[in-house]
């Protein structure tokens, strides 16, 4: 009974590899219990970011891995969600109604933009589509920094959140399992459960008949059209779905950070991070976004600490020490990335899940 329910909520698509399942279980349990098995600001922050990125990267994979569309406008939608929420909350008395309105308007804006870009651009060659989205996204970033009265310009802006999830709020007077249940923890669980719901939704979409059509389009768009699928409609639909999900991820991120700004939400670096995660995790498999996001963000947050130690112990070998200098963490990430495109073209999930995966 329970296992059927479980299977169905995972849309019958549990990976075939035992190791992979264990890994996934570990990550999900880790995230579910993060406030209680860790202490301090950084681990919780890492966990929250992982939750957001699972949604963000998953929605991007819908485009990249499943439909074969390379878009650089994903951060734009992410940003719209974040700014939407921040505007909704930027009154003196931030409340949930404001947040909901902000998110709703952001979703509507994203949908409209996705539709327009899709109608205009999805009919051209793939590489052009990428470039056009790149251009649109960078114009949007310019716009955001020009409208500094509402967006805070280059510097971005901080805002406060409803009482329930603000750090000062405490649910119980004493700590539970060694952790004070404050607004931060409540906010974390809000993100965690949103991520779970959105992830299951995406899983269902990619395993639906619709999801299979997207794969067909990725494989051979011309042929998909010839067997009766109006590929433009499907691509636009995929684009819109991905945009909405990215918007929601943006709202989640802003809610957690209580800050919005172009560097955090709109920059090309965020886009690179998304790409890195999709590829390392495994394109065309949503589970890849879980593994990828967890691995990448843990590395991003802790690689430097590791490197500091390595660097100090290698002080006698100046050149190697230089390469292992914590400031060069991006170098190692880049190498990891190249190697993973090289050796795990299907990402970690693809590698572990060699037999029939979602993609095939």
């Amino acid at each position: 009974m329970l296992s059927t329910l479980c299977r169905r909520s995972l849309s019958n698509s549990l990976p075939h590899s035992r190791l992979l399942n264990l890994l996934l279980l570990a990550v999900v349990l880790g995230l579910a219990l993060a406030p209680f098995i860790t202490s301090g600001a950084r681990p919780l922050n890492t966990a929250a970011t992982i939750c957001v990125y699972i949604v963000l990267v998953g929605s991007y994979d819908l485009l990249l891995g499943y439909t074969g569309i390379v878009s650089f406008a994903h951060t734009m939608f992410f940003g719209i969600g974040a700014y939407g929420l921040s505007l909704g909350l930027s009154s003196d008395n931030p409340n949930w109604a404001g947040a909901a309105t902000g998110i709703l308007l952001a979703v509507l804006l994203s949908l409209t933009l996705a539709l327009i870009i899709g109608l205009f651009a999805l009919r051209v060659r793939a590489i052009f589509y990428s470039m056009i989205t790149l251009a649109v996204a960078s114009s949007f970033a310019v716009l955001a920094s020009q409208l500094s009265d509402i967006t805070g310009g280059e510097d971005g802006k901080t805002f406060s959140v409803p009482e329930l999830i603000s750090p000062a709020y405490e649910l119980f007077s004493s700590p539970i399992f060694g952790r004070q249940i404050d607004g931060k923890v409540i906010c974390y669980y809000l993100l965690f459960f949103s991520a779970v719901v959105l992830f299951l939704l995406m899983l269902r979409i990619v395993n639906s008949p619709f999801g299979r059509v997207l794969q067909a389009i990725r494989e051979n768009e011309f042929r998909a059209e010839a067997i009766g699928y109006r590929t433009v409609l499907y691509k636009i639909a995929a684009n819109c779905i991905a945009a909405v999900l990215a918007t929601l991820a943006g709202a989640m991120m802003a809610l957690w950070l209580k800050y919005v700004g172009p560097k955090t939400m709109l920059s090309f670096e965020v886009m690179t991070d998304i790409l890195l995660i999709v590829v390392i995790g495994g394109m065309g498999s949503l589970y890849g976004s879980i593994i990828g996001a967890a691995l990448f963000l843990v590395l991003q947050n802790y690689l430097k600490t590791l490197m500091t130690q390595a660097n100090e112990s290698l002080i006698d070998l100046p050149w190697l020490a230089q390469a292992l200098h914590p400031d060069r963490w991006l170098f190692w990430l880049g190498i990891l990335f190249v190697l993973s495109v090289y050796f795990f073209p299907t990402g970690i999930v693809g590698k572990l899940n060699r037999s029939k995966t979602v993609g095939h």
Partner: protein
Amino acid sequence: MNTSVTAEANTAPSLALAKPDIKPLLLIPAIALAALPLVGSGSTWMTLTLAGLAMGMVIFIIASGLTLIFGLMDVMNFAHGAFIASGAFIASMMVAPLLSWSESESIGLNIAVLAIAILGAMLVTGILGIIFERVIIRPVYGQHLKQILITMGGMIVAEQLITMIWGAEQIPFPLPQVLRGSIVLGETLIEKYRLFAVVIGTVVLLSMLYVLNRTKLGLLIRAGVENPEMVESLGYRIRRLFIAVFAAGSALAGLGGVMWGLYKETVSTAMSGELMVTVFIVVIIGGMGSVGGCFISSLLLALVANYAGFLMPKLALVSHILLMIMILVWRPSGLYTPGKN
């Protein structure tokens, strides 16, 4: 709505029957003339136009390597920027001990410095290109998605390596004495450096056109991208050709780096990212890998940026992007499609 994408592609007029297409070329004088009444003052217009055309040449030099690689091998090399930066760093390193030559009044010494900078940078970036092709690009020929991804990875690594080697500080890269200053004719002014850029740009353009149109090389590489196995079955060592093209493209990036570094008179790691969007836009609106298209679009872009900057600075924020969208609406696959001219 109903026309399928492929059908549109297929109904494009027959390539064999196309006449030389000069409309894009005419766009340049058209835009310049249209700007004249708006700008008003003749000398200002002249200064803007000359500066724009020359800056277009610089952009062309920087973009030419990318076009070459993209057009012939269908590889979108996101790491091109890193080659540009390395070219500039290498050149600045080579000329650093020759500061007195470049400051000297002797034109001969000045030219020697320039030659050393350019040739040195091109040589080293060419070699780097070969390495890059071997370890990064080779496994992913013909796979667009992976190319985008792996070259982005390559870009990150290369940029970090540059920072590791040269540090994050800006390094001065002074212009040799001959190229300093400007020539003033009445109220019109043109920087000497820009004249130099025009000369180098023309050399690059002509030699690329020659190699691609007068030799089998261009054909072979395009064939090799579509079907490397067939080209090998015909008896060509396509891998070596790919390497050669990649090396040439990277060397051109190195040259672009020198030109850009000389223009800015400083060299920094930021250089690699600075122009990339511009260069991508140039390559896109020029038409995939068409050298002529790339040339025209570089000039257009720089001219439009100058006019927009003068007439309406706000517009200059997005002038590149507007230009791109307008051109793609006019010609959805860019100004020229390769093979067409």
